[in-house]
């Protein structure tokens, strides 16, 4: 594995190519109904990957990744309807929009230096606030959202296809690109810096790593990553609504997929997304479409994984691999270095000093 292609090991490149080719061929064999399920799984894998990217590299538990996906969806829907901008171009503009949203959030997060609990709650509030804000924004369709205009004869540049198979393939390519990025990032200089910043911020600062900048860049990249998924998902659904991206089901689906996947390997989100979306869909079918069965099964899988495999599928995988080779995995070591709850008691209304 000494020879590398742009920072990717040969093994990773082979794996990604096999995934792409196999996925491409399998996509052609799917029935329309299955393809629909696969599209939604492949979409959820994208924001979930961005969540795990952030959580795995910096320990930031951000519940607002779907907001960035929504930014992507609204960018393409708005630009296509209002200015007839090709969604393919929106794929370039959407990450810029996501970055514009992410930068102030990143600054606030870095400045406040809040612990994981507070970050989780604040980002949850942002996720809940965005639909409320969107309701008031008329150009973005308010509570109804935006329906993507359908030209009489959609061309390739309109990114509108009749067959879900095409979307399966587009999402497949997107997922492979995200995986390639994540694998590259791990071994890159930035990736190493980020690990240093997470494990020991003071030491990282002391050896000259710009910790604040690394944190901000990582948060912004994770937002941009999620926005790509949003663009394609909006085109697939031909609409962009608050509920599609930020409804309770969509919001928690992203988080649960990410947590079930675990942060130890980048491919986890893809596996977890397929598993969870497929099983909860099947369960709904078995229950004759009874309301709540899907969410309940989905929650049950989550509970099971949270209790039995607290580090998710890939954490367990890493553990098994490590046990075989007889040395503790990186994740196992990480468990014991979890920082204490960074929130002071505040009975009298005044807190202790800020970090």
């Amino acid at each position, binding site marked *: 594995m000494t020879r590398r292609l742009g920072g990717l090991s040969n093994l990773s490149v082979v794996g990604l190519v096999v995934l792409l080719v196999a996925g491409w061929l399998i996509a052609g064999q799917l029935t329309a109904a299955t393809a629909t399920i696969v599209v939604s799984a492949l979409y959820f894998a994208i924001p979930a990957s961005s969540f795990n990217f952030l959580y795995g590299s910096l320990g930031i538990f951000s519940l607002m990744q779907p907001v960035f996906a929504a930014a992507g969806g609204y960018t393409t829907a708005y630009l296509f309807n209002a200015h007839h901008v090709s969604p393919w171009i929106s794929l370039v503009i959407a990450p810029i929009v996501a970055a514009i949203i992410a930068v102030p959030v990143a600054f606030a997060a870095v400045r*406040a230096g809040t612990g994981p*609990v507070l970050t989780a709650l604040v980002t949850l*509030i942002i996720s809940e606030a965005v639909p409320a804000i969107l309701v008031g924004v008329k150009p973005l369709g308010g509570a109804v959202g935006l329906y993507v205009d359908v030209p009489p004869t959609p061309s390739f540049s309109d990114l509108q296809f009749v067959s879900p198979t095409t979307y399966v393939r587009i999402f497949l390519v997107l997922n492979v690109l995200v995986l390639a990025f994540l694998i590259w990032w791990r071994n890159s200089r930035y990736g190493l810096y980020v690990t240093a910043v997470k494990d020991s911020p003071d030491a990282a600062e002391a050896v000259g790593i710009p910790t604040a900048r690394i944190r901000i860049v990582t948060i912004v990249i994770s937002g941009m990553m999620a926005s790509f998924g949003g663009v394609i998902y909006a085109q697939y659904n031909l609409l962009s609504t608050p509920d599609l991206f930020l409804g309770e089901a969509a919001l*928690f689906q992203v988080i649960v997929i990410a*947590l079930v996947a675990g942060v130890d390997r980048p491919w986890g989100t893809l596996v977890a997304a397929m598993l969870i979306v497929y099983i909860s869909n099947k369960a709904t079918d078995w229950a004759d479409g009874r309301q709540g069965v899907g969410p309940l099964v989905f929650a049950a899988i989550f509970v099971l994984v949270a209790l039995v495999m*607290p580090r998710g599928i890939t954490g367990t995988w890493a553990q098994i691999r490590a046990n075989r080779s007889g040395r503790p995995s990186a994740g196992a070591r990480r468990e014991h270095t979890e920082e204490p709850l960074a929130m002071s008691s505040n009975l009298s209304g005044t807190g202790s000093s800020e970090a």
Partner: protein
Amino acid sequence: MYLAQLLLVGILSGAVLSLVGVGFTLVLGVGKIANFAHGALVGVGMYAGYSAAKYADINPYLLLIPAALVFAVVGWAVAEMFEWRGRKIGHIGELVVGLALLLLINGALEVVFGADARTYSSVDIGSVKAFGLIIPATQIIAASFTFVVAFVAYLFIQQTRWGRALRAVAENPNAAALHGIRVPIAQRVAVVASIVLAGLSGIIIAPFSVMTPDVGAGYLISAFAVVIVGGVGNTLGAVAAGLGIGVINSLAAGYLSSVWTTLTPLLLLLLFLLVRPVKVQA
């Protein structure tokens, strides 16, 4: 007159926010756990009251004492889960347990009761007329319950030996342990108390609230807002914050467009976090 009406409505709805926030402030301040399922447990209380009134024809207020016992047992189990996961993978583990419970409760409520919004009006114990508004007595009971609970919790925390122990644990668990306070017990007590409060709040507010299986996330957000504005662990602060948010909410709804009703508290909260960040320690 209109202003007085808005203020009154704001105070009554604010009292509900306070009630949910009081329990959350206990678990966050003393138990040091952000229980994501707090709002969902309020939802369980609501549906319990609803079922009692609708299917068994029992006055939900009679349910309060047995429900408190049931929620105490449930709370203890939840506290054990938090403790177990928290010890193993830290606070992220507790977040995950809370999130899992939230989703599980949402799903279960939806399977049992369906996704449609429900209300019940079978509890009619009269009403009071004030400023030209008819206030159902159920709302007045809820507001009074809030004030009593917050005041009792405040007295308990400030004046009793147990309360001192809880405060010590909140301030510095290690030092508290050195002084012979059983920290795990104190933290569990906080979790149990907050869950009992969550369940009872649900029963109390159900007669005048709209129920959907996913009320949990909404109440979690308002509880968090109340705690941030009122100060973590401060029960009287939670009441003040809840009333403040309720009144601002109601004024926004009355004088601005309806868009602002949901948005104002969220924007206020974000503003509050920016201006006066919750103090954290490294």
